[in-house]
């Protein structure tokens, strides 16, 4: 298993509480190829957002982030280049999806109030903290257990399975 840099720094986008999977990966987008589907994340909540988000950005959400379906929203965030998800509280299915798709996700109570759009966040997945580099506010966050960091280090559960000989993975788009 390759070692992973557990620190991530990126520009912040904020969303509110209870943003559901229907708001991130609507049914009509499920009929599209993944790169096209990714253009509809937050289609109603923040129209035009997928044109503004840049690789390396971080999404900071409120409570109960990702309530809803098992549809792999995390894959869309990855295609948009989002480097990490941070929330006051995650729906556990959504959190697992993120990890399994190789997208770091950190639970940080107080995060929503500590950031506004355009701020820069620095976080550490293994040590469990997130910092607003502009204001200096630093919050403790739930550090990810080693098993979860192992999945992230492999780039997600499918690359991990491929490494273990369960499948041959096509080149990632």
């Amino acid at each position, binding site marked *: 298993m390759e070692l992973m840099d557990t620190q991530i720094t990126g520009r912040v986008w904020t969303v509110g509480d*209870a943003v*559901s999977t*229907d*708001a991130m990966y*609507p*049914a*009509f987008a*499920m*009929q599209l190829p*993944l790169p096209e589907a990714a253009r509809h994340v937050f*289609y*109603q909540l923040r129209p035009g957002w997928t044109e503004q988000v840049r690789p390396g950005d971080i999404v900071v959400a409120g*409570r*109960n982030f990702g*309530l*809803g*379906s*098992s*549809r*792999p929203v*995390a*894959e869309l965030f990855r295609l948009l280049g989002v480097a990490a998800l941070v929330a006051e*509280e*995650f*729906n*556990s*299915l959504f959190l*697992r*999806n993120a990890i*399994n*798709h190789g997208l770091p996700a950190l639970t940080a109570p107080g995060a929503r109030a500590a950031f506004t759009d355009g701020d820069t966040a620095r976080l550490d997945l293994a040590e469990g903290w997130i910092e607003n580099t502009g204001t200096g506010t630093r919050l403790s966050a739930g550090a990810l*257990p080693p*098993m979860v960091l192992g999945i992230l280090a492999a780039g*997600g*559960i*499918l690359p*991990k*399975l491929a490494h273990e*000989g*369960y*499948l*041959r*993975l*096509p080149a990632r788009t």
Partner: protein
Amino acid sequence: MGMTVIERILARRAGLAEVTVGQTVVCEVDMTVLIDLQFATMWTPPLRISDPDRVAIVMDHAVPAPTVGDAAGGVKAREFAREFGVSRFYDVGRHGICHQVIAENGLARPGELLACTDSHTCAAGAYNTAARGLGPAEVYAILCTGTTWFQIAPTIRYEFTGTRPDTVSGKDIFLHLAGTYGDATNHNLEYGGPGLASVPMHDRRTIATQGAEVSADFSTFPADEVCRSFIARQTPGAADWTAADPDPDAAYADVRTVDLSALEPQVARPGSVSRNSLPVSAIERRRVDQCFIGSCANGQLEDLAIAAAVVSGRRVADGVRLLVTPASQAVYREAMRAGYLQTLADAGAVITNSTCGACFGYHMGLLGPGEVCLTSSTRNFTGRMGSPEAEIYMASPATVAASALTGRITDPRSEWN
């Protein structure tokens, strides 16, 4: 320290004497259920899998295939089932919404662990099964390895007392709980108490299913006499499973006592079910454009029976569409034999193929801008069933059927035949 139902099952499958909240465990999974969507996106055939006898495939979300992409997924599902010898393959014709198919075919057994690609997999908690929805990548991993990991979450217990009135369904009980107590994010839900005996299995399944809407991890019910006789009827044969009961000294994050006899039909307002429902007597008598009875939560035979009883001999109001989706092909056939479908269609309902279609706004029964829907399905989230400018209210099949007759959200007790 004693264990809750979910702690007992996860400890058992992790090969541990006990587990405690916060602990991360690796569990052997008894049954892994793949759905059609799994094959339509991101499917790569595995080189080897753990055990084809612990796998089932259910075609449900997009059947018969509405798009070429979904049809291509079907091709891959059939190839996979053939190549790996998966005999539990519920293809179009013996299909249904996976949670109904799981129940009909005894795939969820008391005291065991079940994983499936759909978020409403917690439905099988009605049968004392530790069941939860997992993403397609994780379900694929379980298919390969036979195991996955869980972090033991705290459990909230609902202790039912009193006797459920006949006019109050599982949907009404759930909407009352969701409306009163709100979300249970990162918690398990456990149901029990002396009042539970008055809650039949189909209502328990509605309640267990909708744990997803309050963001819970697992929902579980005990394997009491009502549950055991259901399983014996549904899947006759050796009951070679071991049920999981909670210990008397199990630790709960909260114990909430609910008197079922005091409840009345409930309606959730659009947007969320959490802290967003009211008794039907207190809700606005909003006009409705579409009424929907179906889904894993409320497309069961008993749901169609009650809807048929409400509309029998009457007509759906002008300007209202009533859609009815049986939860499985088996339910469809049984409801046809029993005359429920005839009664519903005579009243003006459209009976659809068994699928998840309308519930998740994928391939039929979508809503247009400005429309109002009253649904008995699983989610009233913005944009769930089509236009984000539509409003989705949620209620029991009886309330939906009664409202289809009047064209306004209506107390079913006033329209009961």
